[in-house]
């Protein structure tokens, strides 16, 4: 089977007084309908990697392909969900979700139909006419996910979307996202620094090293679907969690050492 997205020898150097190698020679494929989580310590370049796939940053060298087509710059075929504050505050919830559809030149009635179905999907029925500043953090992220999905992108890119939420809301959002993925058969690339989140959501976890970020390990998560929060107490889950926690800890310590040496 051909991969959906191919990431080939990606490097990112930040130029400055001293050049900083942020992301170092990363290679991996994303298959259709895969849910890949990228787990790494803070500052490892995982967000930079995601932003390069999204076309919001340019790699210094290497190539990214969607199917056979090389990706240059952002486009509606890759939907993005940011950590926070990316909803358009002057638009109602439904207009936010219709934003991409309007860009495509879709008719009002058709847009409304699609936004209604995604509002239903993320459980926000009744909030169509609300403005973002009337919603809680969790609800805002529901809208952000619905907005990205409504555009029907080839791949959904999420950059620590639940990082700013409290732990209860976060769990609910994780289940919601899994549920959507199981229903809609989407291809997802998800960035996080939370070990539990990475395992719970991912069908595959890529662990990154501290800066310069490389892929340290590539683990398939063979836990069955549909998953609920109960899976977090499954022995198989705990075993993977212990292993990944150890890996991330090593990398975090390295990162701290590097900081100290500076």
């Amino acid at each position, binding site marked *: 089977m051909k991969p959906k997205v191919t990431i080939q020898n990606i490097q990112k150097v930040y130029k400055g007084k001293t050049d900083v190698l942020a992301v170092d020679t990363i290679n991996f494929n994303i298959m259709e309908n895969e849910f890949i989580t990228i787990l790494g310590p803070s500052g490892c370049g995982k967000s930079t990697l995601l932003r390069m796939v999204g076309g*919001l940053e340019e790699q210094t060298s290497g190539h990214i392909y969607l199917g056979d087509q090389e990706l240059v710059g952002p486009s*509606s075929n890759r939907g993005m969900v940011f950590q926070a*504050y990316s909803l358009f505050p*002057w638009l109602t919830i439904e207009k936010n979700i219709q934003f991409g559809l309007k860009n495509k030149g879709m008719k009002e009635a058709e847009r409304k139909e699609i936004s209604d179905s995604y509002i239903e999907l993320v459980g926000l029925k009744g909030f169509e006419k609300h403005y973002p500043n*009337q919603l809680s953090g969790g609800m805002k992220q529901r809208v952000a996910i619905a907005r990205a999905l409504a555009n029907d992108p080839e791949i959904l890119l999420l950059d620590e979307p639940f990082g700013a939420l409290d732990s209860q809301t976060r769990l609910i959002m994780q289940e919601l996202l899994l549920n959507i993925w199981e229903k809609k058969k989407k291809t997802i690339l998800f960035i996080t620094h939370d070990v539990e989140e990475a395992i719970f959501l991912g069908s595959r976890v890529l662990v990154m090293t501290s800066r310069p970020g490389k892929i340290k390990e590539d683990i398939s998560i063979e836990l069955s679907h549909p998953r609920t929060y109960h899976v977090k107490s499954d022995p198989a889950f705990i075993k993977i969690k212990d292993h990944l926690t150890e890996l991330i800890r090593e990398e975090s310590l390295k990162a701290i050492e590097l900081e100290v040496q500076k």
Partner: protein
Amino acid sequence: MQEPKTAVNDTSIPMYKEQNKKETKRRISWLQPQKAISKKLYLSLSVSSFILILLVWSGLTYTQIVDPLFLPTPTDIIHSAVTLFTELGFATDILATISRVFVGFLLALIIGLPLGILIGTFKVVEAFFEPVISFVRYMPVSAFIPLFILWIGVEEPEKIAVIFVGSFFSLVLMIAVEVGNVRKELLEAAYTLGSTNFGIIKSVILPAAMPGIMEITRLVLGWAWTYIIVAELIAAPSGIGHVIIESQRMIRTSNIIFGIIVIGILGLICDVVLKIVTRKLFSWNYGR
């Protein structure tokens, strides 16, 4: 607000009986920094400041401690107001001043708004215009007035030119800064939703910056009121500034003071109206 689908059953919360605990005395809350006070207290304090001014003024003038030539009594001012409106056609002067401000300011806004947006959006435009505009902005518009009189004369176009020059450069620069501060996340989100470089100006930059632009408009319009008076003081066939300078020549102090009060009231009305309009139009920007 709650997450949806989470029903809270209020009756399930147990009610505690009031206990006979001694209440500690509350601290005096109006001395707590930034602590809100009741609307009633706020309003009465605001009103009392005006009353205080009026009292001090009356005390100084009715007792003739101060020479009425320097400061007339409140009654004198009211007399002046009546004469100005009924005999001297002050309403026409007020209208003349208002129309000058609005024509000049509107022109500045019509040209300044698109230019400010372009400067705030595109670095190439910024590099070309920004230095020149920053330079001109620091030249006081009142110093231009003799030059304008020489070039354009003392009629309406000169007054409008003063307002235009006085507001245009500040408007452009402040709008450019506001537009440049539109959050990057919003632009990035729009790009991943298929927006184009030019489409994004209309669909993201403009709506995001609009409340700030309205605030800027309100501020600069306030400055425009002072420029017009300066222009009218120097040379004008009509207008509030003209009435003030004429009154000085005839030593009618109460006319001068009434003229100043009218300017203040006009500025305040402008300000309040714009504030209300902004809040109505951009309610999404002002809380829940």
